[in-house]
């Protein structure tokens, strides 16, 4: 087990390194360098060259990369060109907003989909089942940014129930979090339904039935527990996915999370912030994967840890 853990952690580090490297090289090929952006349209050629030198932008790419990796290991991502101060500080300041949004979205999606999934499994192939799969299909098919705008039009503009954007209260969270989880609710419902149906067709359920156990007992005690394994896996991974989707949703709702910071920083060529936030995102994502994998093995001992990917 310890050997597995160490290997798993080393592997996670490798993946993070890969992500950081990709981003580093991709962003440096982007036209428009930070020195020019910082100085604006009135800058002279000399000013730009001077600043490029100061920022180390004239070093060979490989030198910049090695320096960058060295700093990254020390969690030093440099100063933000645009916002000033340590890039990591900015990212850490914004990150809780994104986490808040993602966690709220997860809570909303579980609360909604668990009962619906069970209902769908119980009334398999009934009207409810059909309705749920249709609405879930709908949720998955609508582009989130458009759903966000529609929710603003309906709930902020016409009904005036929630603020249309910004942050500051629980009310500000509702629309973006709802938008965030809508595409996934359908998937989770399906996952629960399919998992339940799968489990219900297994031998031990027949045995339990033949022993005269009540259908509900079978469902909640044996079946649901087994179904929870994929659900937990998906939830862990979903957190990462939510953070990804949050990028656009934060733009739509002016939510001050890491996603909006990232989009702004990409447009501003604010390398330091882009890298700091990507390292953070990749770390969180990989870490979630790790935890999920370990949980997976823990919850269901049938799965040997060695088998995990």
């Amino acid at each position, binding site marked *: 087990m310890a050997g597995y853990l160490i290997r798993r952690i080393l592997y996670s580090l*490798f*993946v*993070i390194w*890969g*992500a950081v490297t*990709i*981003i580093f090289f*991709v*962003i440096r*090929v*982007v*036209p428009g360098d930070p020195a020019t952006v910082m100085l604006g349209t009135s800058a002279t050629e000399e000013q730009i060259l001077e600043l490029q030198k100061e920022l180390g932008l004239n070093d060979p790419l490989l030198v910049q990369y090695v320096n960058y990796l060295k700093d990254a290991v020390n969690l030093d991502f440099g100063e933000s060109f645009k916002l000033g101060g340590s890039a990591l500080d900015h990212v850490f300041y914004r990150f809780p907003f994104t986490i808040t949004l993602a966690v709220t979205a997860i809570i909303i999606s579980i609360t909604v989909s668990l009962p619906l999934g069970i209902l769908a499994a119980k009334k398999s192939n009934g009207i409810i089942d059909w309705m749920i*799969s249709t609405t879930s*299909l*709908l949720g*998955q*098919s*609508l*582009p*989130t*940014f*458009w759903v966000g*705008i*529609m929710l*603003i*039009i309906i709930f902020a*503009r016409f009904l005036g129930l929630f603020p249309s954007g910004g942050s500051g209260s629980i009310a500000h969270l509702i629309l973006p979090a709802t938008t965030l989880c809508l595409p*996934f609710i359908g*998937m989770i419902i*399906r*996952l629960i339904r*399919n998992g339940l*149906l*799968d489990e219900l067709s297994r031998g031990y359920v027949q045995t339990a039935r033949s022993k005269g156990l009540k259908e509900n007992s079978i469902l909640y005690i044996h079946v649901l527990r087994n179904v929870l394994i994929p659900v937990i*896996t*998906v939830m862990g*991974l*979903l957190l*990462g*996915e939510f*953070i*990804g*989707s949050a*990028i*656009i949703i934060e*733009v*739509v709702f002016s939510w001050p999370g890491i996603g909006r910071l*990232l*989009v702004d920083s*990409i*447009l501003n060529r604010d390398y330091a912030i882009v890298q700091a936030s*990507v390292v953070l*995102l*990749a770390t969180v*994502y*990989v870490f979630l994967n790790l935890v999920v994998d370990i949980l997976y093995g823990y919850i269901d001992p049938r799965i040997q840890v060695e088998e995990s990917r």
Partner: protein
Amino acid sequence: MTQESTMSVSNEMVMKRTTLVKWDWGIIIACIPVTMYVLIGIFGPIFIDFDPTKTFTGSRLLPPGSVLENGKTAWLGTDQVGRDILSQIIYGTRISLLVSLATVLIGGSVGVLLGLISGYFGGLVDSIIMRIADIQLAFPAILLAILIAGVLGPSITNVIITLSITRWVTFARVTRGATMATKKREFVDSARVLGVSNLKILFKHVFPMCVSPLMVIITVQIGLVIISEASLSFLGLGVPPSQPSWGLLISHGRDYINSAWWIATMPGIALAILVVSVGFLGDKLRDKFDPSLD
């Protein structure tokens, strides 16, 4: 995420031999709306008299059903420079379909090829390909798309390249899974024993077994790509502003949700119907090829 769930499903699918040939009315019905979109995308722009570069500032922001200066009726209203929204949506259909089909074709081919190689040969090649895939999956696809689209600049070709890069992984993983499952089966073994070349085994015996899981994946991916294209265009990183992409229309309409809600709403509805239809078709395919759901 959809990748993950469909993947585990597809592994099972390979084990159960399914046939493609049998007529299924559910699938045929599900094909109807998709076909309509394809027809609109191909022929629509030919039949309407509309130039997306022409502006009519005198008829800006008119609500659906308004009659324009030139006597025509704008059934879905006009936008911020007086262009007819319905006509733009018809043009946008072509862009959406073009981008999604091209992406699935390019990204899909690359992914399938790598997946076949990876799954069939295993070893170092497999490790390298799958590690690259893992790294790519370590950060959100939309982030990678934003980055690459930023490098390349807005154009239809660049959107296709960008989305192909972000989409190959799913195809590769699914194909790899199916290949690995097929590899262990008797008919592959016997082919190998008979001295059939690897290439021939791959394409003659292994690949056909990947087709049915891929069919499901393709429909799912087409939906995702349509949404991704719209999202990139929404952020201003996708299709250039001269092309009436749905995402761009929605993005422009966002500034007018207080005064002209129809600009952002209408293209979104067109997009939603298409993606729902494709998703519905995908569902039907999945139900058919994966009896475990029945």
